[in-house]
């Protein structure tokens, strides 16, 4: 187990930021930490990196306890804090050198490793520029480079793509995938597509509690609600409400049908069906049998987005 979080609770004053959180991260796993702002993602990460102590509970990183072996834990971790703080008056090389030396790297090996990271992160063009002159995308790369300069086993990335434009997001995501290979990664985000694109596993956290834990696919399945199929069809039948509507409603597994109005002789319907079912085939056969002209049919199932929305706005779900 690379990281073991046990019963972590943190109070800010009287306010509980995280509440009895426990989870494990396996070696080599990329874990997405998902939750709305203020859910406790950052707090949890700050505790794992030994920036601040929990009110109770503990964390074990690669076998080292955050209380007893804080320095060992810090050596194991590469950390990109929220908002990616950097020394704007240093240039890229100076900053990476500084970071590496504070991680105990000495002259031998340091030069090579720095060159490696500069190349890997695509920083060679700007390596002698002041960080303050760099664009946000480049700064993020510098942030990643400093986090990985000492080749840590564990990477903790707090919202690594926030504030970037879509192209930069893809770049940084690929960089994380490339560099995070064979590393244990925890990354927090509130962008869902990011989790689907990069993570092996997702933990959704809300109001300081873990509300879901699993692969993105599993979460989608577990929290899948009713399926909906939207239809658009033409019919010769005179009265849609009496001729078509009851027949749709009469199909097995159909829970509800909504009429969406008429548009150039085409009628729209939304068919709600039972969880996990797929009625497209039956609908097609029905249409053929009745002589309806099917113009459009599409099936929508719950996205991770909806799972997230459900979990983080409603009452906390019991596990």
């Amino acid at each position, binding site marked *: 187990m690379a990281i073991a979080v046990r019963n972590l609770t943190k109070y800010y004053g009287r306010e509980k930021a995280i509440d009895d959180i426990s989870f494990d991260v396996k070696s080599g796993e990329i874990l997405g930490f998902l939750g709305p702002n203020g859910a406790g993602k950052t707090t949890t990460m700050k505790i794992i990196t030994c920036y601040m102590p929990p009110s109770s509970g503990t964390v074990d990183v690669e076998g080292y306890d955050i209380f007893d072996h804080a320095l060992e834990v810090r050596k194991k971790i590469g950390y990109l804090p929220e*908002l990616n*703080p*950097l020394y704007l*008056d240093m240039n890229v090389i100076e900053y990476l050198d500084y970071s590496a030396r504070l991680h105990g790297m000495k002259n031998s090996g340091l030069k090579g490793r720095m060159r490696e990271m500069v190349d890997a992160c695509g920083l060679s063009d700007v390596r002698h520029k002041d960080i303050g002159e760099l664009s946000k995308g480049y700064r993020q790369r510098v942030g990643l480079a400093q986090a990985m300069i000492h080749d840590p086993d564990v990477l903790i990335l707090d919202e690594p793509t926030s504030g970037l434009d879509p192209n930069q997001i893809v770049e940084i995501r690929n960089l994380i995938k490339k560099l995070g290979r064979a590393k244990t990664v925890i990354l927090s985000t509130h962008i869902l597509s990011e989790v689907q694109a990069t993570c092996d596993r997702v933990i959704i956290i809300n109001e300081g509690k873990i509300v879901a834990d699993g692969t993105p696919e599993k979460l989608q399945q577990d929290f899948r609600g009713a399926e909906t199929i939207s239809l658009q069809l033409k019919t010769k039948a005179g009265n849609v409400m009496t001729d078509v509507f009851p027949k749709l409603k009469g199909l097995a597994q159909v829970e509800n049908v909504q009429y969406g109005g008429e548009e150039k002789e085409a009628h729209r319907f939304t068919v709600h069906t039972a969880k996990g079912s797929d009625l497209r085939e039956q609908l097609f056969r029905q249409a053929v049998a009745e002589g309806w002209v099917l113009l459009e049919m599409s099936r929508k199932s719950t996205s991770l987005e909806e799972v997230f929305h459900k979990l983080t706005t409603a009452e906390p779900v019991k596990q």
Partner: protein
Amino acid sequence: MTTPTIKLDVKAYLKNFSNVGTIFRKELRSYFNSPVAYVVIIVFLAFIEWFYASDMFKVNLATMRDMFSLVPWIFVFVVPAITMRLIAEERKAGTIELLTTRPVHDSEIVLGKFLAAWALICISLLPTLVHYVTIAFLGDIDNGPVVGGYLGLMLMAGVFVAVGLFASSLTENQIVAMIIGLAMMFALMILDKILIYVPEFMNTIVEFIGVDFHFSNIARGVIDSRDVIYFASVLGFMLYISTISLARRKW
């Protein structure tokens, strides 16, 4: 609040003394990369030339005593300007979070930053040696008070830098850090001059706390263990509480 107890392993600490060196070099370089260092040196010299060097010849004595009594007051205004950024800036920018999650002791951070600011002050004292050369060339100067004076100035600068560093650790606002630092240094400077306002039985204590009292002892060329202990303990104490204040992780 419980802090993660970082066990002080002396052996590992000495082995990693390079951390202090790394932080020291980075801080000193950032003084010289920005206008701060140059402004400090120029302001420092401008004050000394204006108030001291212009009268140097009128005094007609081969002594630097006037300079040694002037420089502490320049310190009071210049040192807070140098030290205010040391920790406050990192708090404001959030880089403190990166710095304190490196495998580095808080005390190493404090020590590295302290040494950098102290070095800058000592560097800005260097050009004043010109006056020593001038006077020594023109007259028969007593070297004791000169050595004592410079030693005293360096010790005093050390205490002031430690005070300023502590002030900087209290806040993320550099202006606030500067005002707190300036007030503390000013208080240390005038303590031995306001004894008439202090109940008589406290006179010796208040006088002992004042930094100028010990400085003038050393500047006379007499190095007394009491003064050395004073400087060492105030400096150590300020660095210690700065370390504690840095470890206070809340915002």
